[in-house]
């Protein structure tokens, strides 16, 4: 059973083609890491899953629903963490939670407070006066508070200092371990991918060129998925795609 099914999706911004027949299956309860270089269409795939973009061709299903036609039902069950805090700068974290709460029927005040406490998010400062790491922790707390079925992470670890990155990563791992939860995560950080991923997909030139369990990306002699092994595997997959394109 797949929580997210993306089938032969094409998408473009003006004349610039971003996705050119991308197909991706994200199994329910699995953590899938989407890897790829900048400008390959990773964020676009996430926006299609969130229903803020409509694919030109192809289909997208999230929890069996069309995220554009059933936008509200899909978004109520999907947590989204952008690559940088995008909420109103004048809000504090409690104000943000008060603002978000009516949008999610499953919003849990206790869960929100627990995550905020666990991540040590400052509650008396506005977003404008928080560091990037504090802001991202608050965004993660806001995304997890409704206990979503699906979690979409758009490079949430980028630009964070190592300590904060570790905190956020642990919280994500904890959230995944709480109960079966589908996660689709975009990252450039291979260390993160290696620690988080059940499955890995590689996006290159608008097409998912390789997809499979994380263990498939390393040679049988390797004991575990490592960043180095991943880098080699991605380079190999991208090379194959380039040959195919020629």
């Amino acid at each position: 059973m797949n929580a997210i099914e993306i089938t032969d999706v094409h998408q473009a911004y003006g004349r610039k083609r971003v996705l050119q027949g991308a197909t991706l299956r994200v199994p329910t309860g699995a953590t899938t890491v989407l890897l790829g270089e900048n400008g390959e269409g990773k964020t676009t795939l996430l926006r299609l899953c969130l229903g803020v973009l409509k694919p030109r061709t192809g289909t997208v299903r999230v929890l069996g629903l069309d995220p554009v036609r059933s936008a509200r039902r899909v978004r109520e069950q999907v947590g989204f963490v952008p690559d940088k805090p995008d909420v109103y700068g004048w809000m504090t974290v409690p104000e943000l939670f008060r603002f978000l709460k009516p949008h999610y029927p499953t919003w849990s005040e206790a869960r929100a407070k627990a995550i905020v406490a666990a991540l040590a998010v400052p509650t008396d400062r506005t977003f404008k006066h928080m560091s990037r790491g504090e802001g991202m922790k608050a965004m993660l707390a806001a995304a997890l508070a409704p206990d979503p079925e699906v979690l979409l992470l758009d490079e949430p670890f980028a630009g964070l200092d190592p300590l904060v990155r570790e905190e956020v990563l642990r919280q994500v791992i904890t959230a995944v371990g709480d109960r079966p939860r589908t996660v689709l995560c975009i990252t450039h950080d291979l260390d993160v991918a290696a620690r988080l991923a059940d499955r890995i997909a590689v996006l290159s030139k608008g097409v998912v060129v390789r997809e499979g369990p994380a263990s498939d990306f390393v040679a049988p002699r390797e004991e575990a998925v490592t960043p180095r092994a991943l880098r080699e595997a991605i380079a190999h997959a991208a090379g194959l795609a380039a040959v195919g394109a020629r």
Partner: protein
Amino acid sequence: MRRLLVWTWKEAREHAARVRLLLVSIPVLTMLGAMIFREELQAGGSTGELTAASFIAWGLVLHALVVASGLFASDVDGGQPLPAQRLPGAMGTALGAKALLYMSTALAAFVVAALCVAGALWLMGQPERAWEVLTPWRTDQGEFTRCCALEALVFGVAVALSSVCLRNPGAAVALGAILWAIPGGAIAYACIEHRYLFPCHPQQLGVLALIVLGILAFALVLTWLLCRRRIGAPWRSAVTALALCLGLGGVGALHAAGSVRDYLDLQPHEAGWRISVACVGIDGRLAFTQVDRVHHAWPARLAGHGRSGWSSLSEARIIDLEGGTWRRVGRPGAQLTNLPVDFYMRGYAAPFLAARHVTYWEQFGLNEPAELFWLDGRSGALAHQHLEPWPDDRSRPLAQGLLRDLSTVRDSKGRRTWLWDGFLHREGSDDPVGVPAAAPALRAFPMDAIPGGWALRHRQGSMPKTAFPVVEAETGRVRSVPAREWSRAFLLSPGVVLYEERRPKVETRWTVLDLDSGRETPALGQVHQACSTLQDGRVVGTREDGDATAFVIWDPRTGAVSDLRSNAPLEGSGWARFTLPDTKGRLIAKVGDRREDRERGESTLVLVDPARVEVRPLLKPATDVDPYDVFAIDDDGSVLIVEEGRRIARLGPALGQRVVLFPRDPRTQSRAQEVK
């Protein structure tokens, strides 16, 4: 509902500082403005009302600058989906909250501005006007306020629409001003250049402002909704939305343009065709007509007036009475000037058949001078043109000739006389008499003539209630006639006036007044129901003769009364209504049975020819004679009439003879002729 509450809270928090700034700025700026424009605000009439309305509108403009310019800025970014776009059900809720904030703050700005203006007026000692300012929906004076406020709201919505695309408030205001100026400029141009067609009244402008407001608001909603799926491309959304709105508006505009084209392309057989006034050229071949098309449907309907309450389109047209063709003269809205256009005077003016020239004028725009055109009365070709009110060297003799042609006023030697530029001119004399009091009446055309002289009508300002000045044709003296301006009065001889005195429910009384001695003498007696004077000072009147109407001539010098013979019996009760004599001394009377209960009885048209001492009926008595307007008497005694405002026909010279000259039967192109 909870979502709407939190979004409203978010909007209120986000714009709190701006709203505070607005509510402080309006009183300060209004009071400052009231001090600077104190005289204008205190002034009565439209100046004061417009000033007060402007102050209130400026409050709303300030609202647009402060609130509307940043209404969407925080929720539309160039790069990524913001909460309004990615939270469940947030797009519509966010828009609702923003609309709520916009409308509530606009209302607050309006109320605060109105209170400040009212306060300023109250401090200036005008509490009544202060109350009117606070209740603009109750008074006619409030139209200015309503219209100006709507215009300012249009600007505000245009700025809000711009703020969807531009995060910078200054840029949003600039783009909003452009969006506002495009339809505003088009409407202003239409009102100035084509005001015969487009509404220029504040109430009707308010309707147009509402339409533009609706279009912009629709574009705003559409832009916002399109933004949902075009992250990072609000411009594309705005352009798409505006294009869609303009497309829809274009369809409406095309429909309206078709309607306007049909309206302008007036055809004689259409129901809207109305010939209001007419005259004929010197040889009787061309009729110069003022044609009105009754109300244009759509602007009147938009203004909520149905088909009434909208000024009709008036055009000058030349009709070839022999060929049955017609052509428009000048632009739509051109007005023939040497016609008896005054409604009261229409039934009273002289029929004439001798105009060598016909004039018409076109007004360029609001508060601009008119251009006067001279047409050749024989061919209808353009002879000359100049700007009024500065006649040039060429137009002066033309005006003199026109006034001579059309003058029905003669002196005791039978010479035609006329007033021009403050002088009394006589036919065949190069020695005009100065009449300084008549100088302002540059256009003392024959419509102002009364037998024996001219009444100096007051075209502007209040009319005198008890007296009006009259220029004697014989001497050029200006005398004051102690009667209401629009009552009938005749100069029997220099210094001697015959005038009627009408009182409600009292029999009309005629009085001869010696202006030098002030001696009044009752005249004509009760048998004379109506009358007109001839050039020699004699008076034509009617009296009741059993069941018939008899015409008499009364000579005031001898007191002798003689009957005019009629070739057919004239039924009626002595009621009649005369035109002034034409250049040959003939006149037309409507004769009939006008009962006291004012119900219309049967009546007929008769030609009174004092030279032949006869009266000749032109029609058999009927109940529908009133719609006939006689505008020319031909040499053979036949008359040209406008029937029901739609047809030009010739009556006579034989009783019951009637030929429709225009419009021709569209199938046969022949004249419709009948003899009853």
